[in-house]
Structure formats: C-alpha cells, structure tokens
C-alpha cells in the first residue's frame, strides 16, 4: 500500500497522539492560529485598502515608499490612541524630528501586527519571540540558498497558508482533507488511474504528508524558521530583496511586517489563489473519479498476488467504556441527552465558577432518599468544584512529574479525596465501600468501593466514578456496583455519574 491513503490517515492520527504538554502547546498554537486567522483577514482588508489609498496619493508625494505604517494596521480605537500618544509625546522631543526609515516603519507595523495577533491570545511572549527568531533565521538561510527549488512544495504550502497566517493549523486541515480523499480512493486509484491524475494524487499525498510530518516535528522556533524560509519567500518574493539588502540591520519583526503587508495585496497572492483554486478543483475531480472506483477497490484485494485486506469490523456496543469527553467512546446506551454539563461563569469580581447542570433523574433520586433538590444540586456543585481544583493542583499528566499513568490516577483520587474531606460535608463521602446493599468496611472482601457517594452514607442517592487518562471501569467493577450498592427506597438503582479527566485524555 502506498503511503498517502488509509495509511496517511493513520499517520495523522498518530501525529495527534501527543503528550499532554505537547497537546497543551498544540492547543495554544491552534488557538493562536484561530485567532490569528480572524485578525489577519481584518488586517488584510485594512492593509489592502491602505495600500490602495497610498498608491492613489503617491503622485502627490504623500508617501515615499508604499509601506504600510504601523498605525494603519491598528483598529480604529487603537489608532486614535496612538494619535493621542503621539500628540502627548511631541513636546518631549528634542531637536528636529527624526525621519522614519523603511525599517523603522516596518518594525512598528510588525510590532502592531504581532500585538494584535498574539497579545490577545494566550501564546506566550517567549514563544512568539522564539517564532520570530526562527523566522529571521529561516529568511536568512533562504537568501543564502537562493535558487533552491521549492516548486512543488511551495504550491502546497501555499494552499495551507492561503489568505492567512495561522501557524500550521491549515497544514493539518489540508493534509487531513487530502488523507480523506486518498482514503476514499485507496491506492488502487493511485496506481491504476491514468498517469497524470495518479501522479497528482501521489504528489499531493506525499507533499502533504511531508509537510504535516515536518510541521509536527518542529518546535516553535523551528516552526518560525520554516515559515520564514519556505513560506515568506513564496508569498513575497519582493521582500526577499529587501531582506537580503538589509538583513543584518532589519529588525526581525520588521521583516515579518513586510511579508504580511505585501502578502495582503500582492500579485503573487492573486497568482497563488488561482493555483489553489486549480488544485482544489483537481482534488474535487479526484473525489469524483474515486467514486466509481470504490467497487473496484473493494474487489482489488482479491486479485491474484495481492494481500487480502481483512474486512473492517463494524463498531460493537461497548460494555465497558462508560463515558469520555465529547461523544468519543460513548457506549451506545448513553445518549448525548444523558450528559451532565458543567458550565463556567465569571462573576463581577472575576471569580470563575463552574455550575453543574444536574439531570432530573439524579434530583428525583435525591427526593426518593428524602433530600430536597437544592441540597442535591449543592452537593454535586461541591464535587464539581473539587474535581476542578484537584485538576488545577495536579495539572496535566507528565510522566516526568507523575510517573506512571496509574500513579497519576492515584494522585488525582488522593487530592480529590483530600479536597472533599476537608470540607467534611456529611452528605458527600469519598471512597465509600458497600457490600450487598449495605455500607461496609473499606477493603473487606467482596465489597465495592465508589469514588464518591452522595447522600446519607448508607442510603446514597447517586455515586460518582472518576477515571483518569485511559482508565475505564472494568466489567467486574460494574457488576460489583450493581450488586453491592444500596438501592433507592423505591428499589431502583441509584444513578451513577462518570467523569473522565483530564479533558482530552481520550483523544
């Protein structure tokens, strides 16, 4: 099987299975990318309008260089603020006003761009700095290596960066789409269809995979380097000359500004868009072509000399995995309506609180046990807060800090237990043990232990099961809970809530 089709998907999946810390970084990057996308579109519009305005007024001598000033990249409010700042600053200036050089202007513009793009988000200054440093290095290398062929890669990387600068999010999206296309078509398509079309698919697949793998393997600084070396020259060939001429003197952020400003309205951008449209239509064409080939692909596995492909089993009802974040891994018995959502609010004094939306069935169970709804809500609220606090205290799983996943889970349970026990709530019990419908001693043979039971200890109205990382309740645990936990006063089984932490552990 050539790489690029189902294998390609697997590669993407593998690429997503990263450590929690990497995941946090990835999320931060994606988040920053997402924010950057929106900001960049607005900025691009602003920049295009500004360039047109400046070009129109150039004949009257209003502009000398056609570069976009820092202020023009700012939103209206910030622009006004800057004007006010400048007015205030003027009396302090001594001697004749210094003429701004191109580099000065570009530097200011870049600072504003990056402030708009990054400061609003949570990406750290250090990371942004690393990115810019890497970008400068990349540009320098590109200049030194001018003439190096980037032909095929440029087109596909251009697709990934079309219309915005988003730190890799689009590369992933693009390669994922390609992976899906090829997954549908299969390698039969790649190997059997007319030569030109096959090579297109293969090219896209291989380039996309290379881009994705490359991107995922880079740290922030090297992502910047990659960006500067491969993408900036693609977007702004003119900027390379400026960079080359003034490479040592130009501020790194200044170069970024030139890139972004030129990117917004350049002919190269138009050309790039056309190329991208052509690629997109070819991809669609591939998808259409793949449809009639699917039956052939299905039977191709039976052809002589080919390794038989085992049929993919349909997903079976999962009796063990009870819940996970989102819909992933939910057993067929649990419908989305049976999820308990914990929403977050920020009060007037900036305190963030998490409010649990307790399901009706749990409230009814509390009533059956003689407790009112408000009390039940309050207890679950307390549990939700304690879980959150335990998570904040422990953090994401890091093998260097926590050791094994089991050790992390034990620690999580321990901290949660401590948090709840400190509150000494008579209706919240941690690690309660039950045997044949009655409360029992901890550790006694045949008992079942629940992480948290709510209500009177010997007559709980609900129980809560916490699982960390990849842990899932075993069938034996399940049977034990049903057999040993006390029934409600009407003879029914108390509802059980499952929580899996940290979020994203199942991804």
């Amino acid at each position, binding site marked *: 099987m050539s790489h690029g089709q189902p294998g390609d998907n697997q590669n993407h999946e593998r690429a997503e299975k990263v450590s929690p810390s990497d995941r946090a970084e990835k999320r*931060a990057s994606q*988040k920053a990318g997402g924010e950057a996308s929106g900001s960049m579109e607005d900025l691009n519009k602003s920049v295009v309008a500004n360039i047109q305005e400046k070009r129109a007024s150039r004949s009257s001598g209003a502009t000398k260089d056609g570069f976009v000033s820092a202020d023009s990249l700012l939103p209206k409010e910030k622009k006004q603020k800057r004007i006010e700042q400048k007015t205030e600053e003027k009396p302090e200036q001594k001697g004749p006003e210094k003429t701004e050089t191109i580099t000065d202007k570009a530097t200011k513009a870049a600072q504003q761009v990056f402030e708009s793009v990054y400061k609003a988000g949570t990406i750290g200054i250090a990371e942004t700095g690393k990115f810019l440093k890497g970008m400068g290095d990349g540009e320098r290398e590109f200049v030194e290596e001018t003439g190096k062929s980037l032909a095929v890669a440029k087109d596909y990387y251009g697709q990934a960066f079309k219309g915005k600068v988003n730190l890799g999010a689009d590369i992933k999206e693009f390669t994922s789409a390609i992976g899906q296309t090829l997954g549908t078509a299969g390698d039969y398509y790649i190997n059997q269809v007319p030569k030109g079309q096959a090579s297109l698919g293969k090219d896209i697949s291989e380039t996309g995979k290379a881009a994705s793998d490359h991107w995922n393997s880079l740290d922030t600084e090297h992502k910047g380097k990659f960006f500067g070396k491969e993408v900036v020259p693609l977007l702004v060939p003119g900027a390379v000359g400026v960079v080359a001429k003034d490479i040592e003197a130009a501020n790194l952020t200044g170069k970024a500004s030139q890139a972004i400003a030129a990117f917004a309205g350049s002919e190269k951008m138009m050309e790039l868009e056309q190329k991208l449209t052509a690629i997109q239509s070819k991809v669609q064409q591939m998808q259409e072509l793949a449809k009639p080939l699917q039956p052939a692909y299905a039977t191709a596995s039976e052809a002589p000399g080919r390794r038989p492909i085992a049929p993919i089993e349909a997903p079976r009802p999962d009796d063990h995995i009870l819940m996970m974040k989102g819909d992933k891994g939910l057993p067929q018995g649990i419908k989305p309506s049976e999820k308990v959502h914990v929403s977050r609010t920020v009060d007037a004094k900036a305190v963030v609180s998490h409010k649990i939306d307790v399901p009706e069935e749990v409230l009814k169970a509390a009533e059956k046990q003689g407790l009112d709804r408000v009390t039940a809500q309050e207890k679950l609220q307390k549990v939700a807060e304690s879980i959150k606090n335990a*998570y904040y205290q422990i953090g994401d799983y890091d093998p260097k800090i926590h050791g094994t996943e089991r050790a992390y889970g034990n620690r999580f349970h321990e901290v949660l237990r401590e948090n709840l026990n400190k509150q000494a709530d008579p209706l919240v019990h941690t690690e309660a043990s039950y045997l044949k419908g009655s409360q029992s001693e901890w550790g006694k043979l045949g008992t079942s232990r629940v992480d948290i039971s709510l209500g009177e200890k010997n007559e709980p109205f609900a129980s809560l099961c916490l699982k960390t990382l990849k842990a899932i309740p075993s069938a034996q645990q399940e049977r034990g809970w049903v057999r040993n936990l006390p029934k409600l006063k009407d003879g029914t089984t108390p509802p059980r809530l499952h929580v899996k932490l940290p979020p994203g552990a199942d991804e």
Partner: protein
Amino acid sequence: MSEEEEIPRFEMVMKLPYFVTEPIELQDGTVLAIGDQVEHVDFGCGTIIRIGAYDEEPKGPFIYVDFGNDVRKELDPSFTHIVKKI
C-alpha cells in the same frame, strides 16, 4: 437484560482548561507568570500557581491563585494586579 443496563448513567462533561507554562501578556501590557503575587479585592494577596485558557466559550485566559489557608481561586487575570514579580 444485563445488570449494567439497568443503571441510570450520566456523563459529567466538565469544560476544563489547558495549561500554559509561559507568561501571558494582558491587553494592558501587564505580564503575568507563574509564581507572581497578585492581589484580589476579596481574597487579598496570593501566588499564581497555574495559568491556562479555555478553548470553549467564554474563551480567554485565567489564573489559578493560591491565597493560602487552602483558599485557591480561578480568576480572570484582568481583575487582579501584580504585587510582586518573580
């Protein structure tokens, strides 16, 4: 019908944040880092022990501050001010 299917089961979906280790810079230019001491109008002075952000609405960064005596609060960073930088 198996015993498991008789239990009303619910998935508790908590929208928890992801953590960042780098300092964050607020809109007003203030830079907050883990270990910094901040002051809150109700809880007094405390130390930032976590910085994170949420993917889901309401989006935005937060700080988790230890005010001592087992009082830890998740706060919107805009409403605190730095007492001491590390």
